[in-house]
């Protein structure tokens, strides 16, 4: 180990200890196990700062945090899956004894022989972990893929294709056409501001149409078709620009959350 690394590690550990002591001290009046609480708050602040250190460069602290996350979160999902789905949905359908052990109350008529199928398929899936039995894991994989394909086929067609078409049946001249003068008289967003509302409808109608032309691959984009596809790409660019502008907010929020944690829960400089 290099000397600088060693010194840095010593400094980090010292700061950690210091924060633990101070934090435990400030919590001592509030909870019984203030030593543990102090450790936990300090530890999570340490993890937060370790991840943020990536902004400077990749470093051992970041690697530590990332490796810890990988391990803990894998176990988290596993436990959640076990307690919520295996214990509550599978076991009462297969075994009375086991459900008693887990203090579940099986309902009459819960027992269902067919629920051995997912158990067998699940075990086959785990065979992937062994170097030789890997091929058998294709059966459950085929089941998973078949299910997703079957479920998605109808739902995507219905919600994202059929319904999107009928959603685009928009009036392009206003609900009650009262001539041009009335149309241009008002530029606000209220119901009487027809121009603005109808302009949006035109944009939606032409935008969807030209966007579809842009994604139409069976015809060369030349002439009128090419022009429409050009409009299509502009609409898409506006869409992506708008999405980007909208998204910035989300990304900033995450940082706000973290900094609030550091300032409030760890350093206690705000309440």
């Amino acid at each position, binding site marked *: 180990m290099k000397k600088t690394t060693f010194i840095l590690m010593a400094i980090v550990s010292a700061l950690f200890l210091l924060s633990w002591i101070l934090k435990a001290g400030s919590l001592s009046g509030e909870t019984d196990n203030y030593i543990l609480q102090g450790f936990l708050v300090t530890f999570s602040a340490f993890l937060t700062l370790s991840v943020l250190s*990536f902004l400077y460069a*990749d470093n051992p602290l*970041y*690697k530590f945090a*990332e*490796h810890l*996350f*990988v391990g803990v979160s894998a176990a988290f999902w596993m436990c959640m899956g076990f307690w919520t789905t295996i214990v509550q949905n599978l076991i009462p359908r297969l075994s009375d004894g086991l459900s008693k052990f887990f203090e579940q109350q099986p309902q009459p008529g819960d027992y269902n022989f067919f629920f051995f199928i997912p158990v067998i398929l699940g075990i086959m899936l785990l065979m992937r972990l062994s170097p030789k039995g890997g091929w058998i894991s294709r059966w459950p*994989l085929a089941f998973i*893929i078949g299910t997703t394909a079957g479920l998605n*086929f*109808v739902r995507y*067609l*219905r*919600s994202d*294709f*059929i*319904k*999107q*078409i*009928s959603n*685009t*049946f*928009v*009036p*392009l*001249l*206003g*609900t*009650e*056409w009262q001539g041009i003068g009335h149309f241009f008289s008002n530029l606000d967003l209220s119901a009487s501001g027809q121009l603005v509302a109808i302009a949006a409808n035109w944009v939606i*109608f032409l935008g*969807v*149409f030209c966007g*579809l*032309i842009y*994604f*139409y*691959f*069976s*015809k*060369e*984009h030349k002439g009128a078709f090419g022009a429409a596809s050009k409009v299509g790409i502009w609409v*898409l*660019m506006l869409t*992506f*620009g708008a*999405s*980007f502008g909208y*998204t910035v907010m989300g*990304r900033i929020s995450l940082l706000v959350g973290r900094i609030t944690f550091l300032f409030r829960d760890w350093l206690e400089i705000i309440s």
Partner: protein
Amino acid sequence: MTPTRLHIFRVISISTICVLLLASLALSQDEATPTTNLSTEIDTVIIEVAAPTSLIATDHKYDNGERINLQWVPSIDDLPGISTVVGYRIYRQDDGGAAEAIADLPAKANHYRDENTELGHTYIYSVAALTDGAEFVSNPTESISPEREWIDFSKRYLFLIALIVGGAVIYFIEIARRGKKLFVRKIAGLEAVDDAVGRATEMGRPILFIPGIQDMDDVQTLAGLTILGRISKTIADYDTEIFMPVSRSLVMTAGREIIKSSYQTAGRPDKYSDDMVTYITDEQFGYVAAVDGIMVREKPATIFLLGAFFAESLILAETGNYIGAIQIAGTARPAQLPFFIAACDFTLIGEELFAASAYLSGEPKQLGSLKGQDVGKAIAMVILVIGALATTIGTAWNIASMNSLVDILKTIFSTS
């Protein structure tokens, strides 16, 4: 029907209704007697309320015979604010057995769906209005058996559209298999690919290829790897360096096979090495950290980001931009497209990624599928125009025929 006949018809129907009403009144008095007795037996003061009326039970349409719908007119004493009716209780007689309470509903309820019926059984229902301490039962329904329908006709249009779109895909795959050439328009991004490889060669710096962070079961990964096939051929010809860090072991195997075969075709199998494709880690941010490191250290001239990307897209594309590389990206994940468009020099947007892959591979299944999807888009465009025009004319000038056309289209293109 002639006017006189119509008149006779009216008279008959009105008198029938009157008779029915009278009969039901008579019947309801018979039924109501026990309840009155019941309420007088209790010591506390019972406020009498009218029982619910007009209870009708119907079979639930398009099910496996496990549902019966009930509808009734709530008790006339069930008034907002001052009501003494606290709720309703549903009674059911199963195959002539004793009436059992099967559900309690809040005040003002006027319908219920019994979802626990069995085929072949007959049921008789009644509804009671509940007050504090007493209940007032309605007339029972006729006996009813749930029915099973084999086909859900309410979804016939959905089925039809599924058939058309699905049929088009299968048809064109079959056509492509028989060897017919299917036209796919030129895709602008693909020309940029060759230029970008050329640029890296001129500068004498490596190329970085990132196939997204999903496994081989994602179509986007497959599309990315198809394009890798094309890129690696050019690379093998020019003898440029390529790095391909991946986050799935299966993708690593596939990537190695593709690059190796490209080098063999180019007649330089000796130049190929397994180190070109390396597995890093499955974990999203671990992968990002490592790839970021590679970018900053190796300073590749060209970066390809083709596949399924998530939140890491921004970090990767930004770092690539920072080191001044030419970047060509492509993904079908709409949430990540804005970042790629902003930070990369060229982006294959959504379906373009698949089209590019189909164009390059020439595989019947990909080309045919693309054609089939185009049929779907053509249908969408045509219906879109008809629907929007009809809506416009219909609403602006209130033309009935146009409005009914819109209604028909909306029925066909609706969700249920």
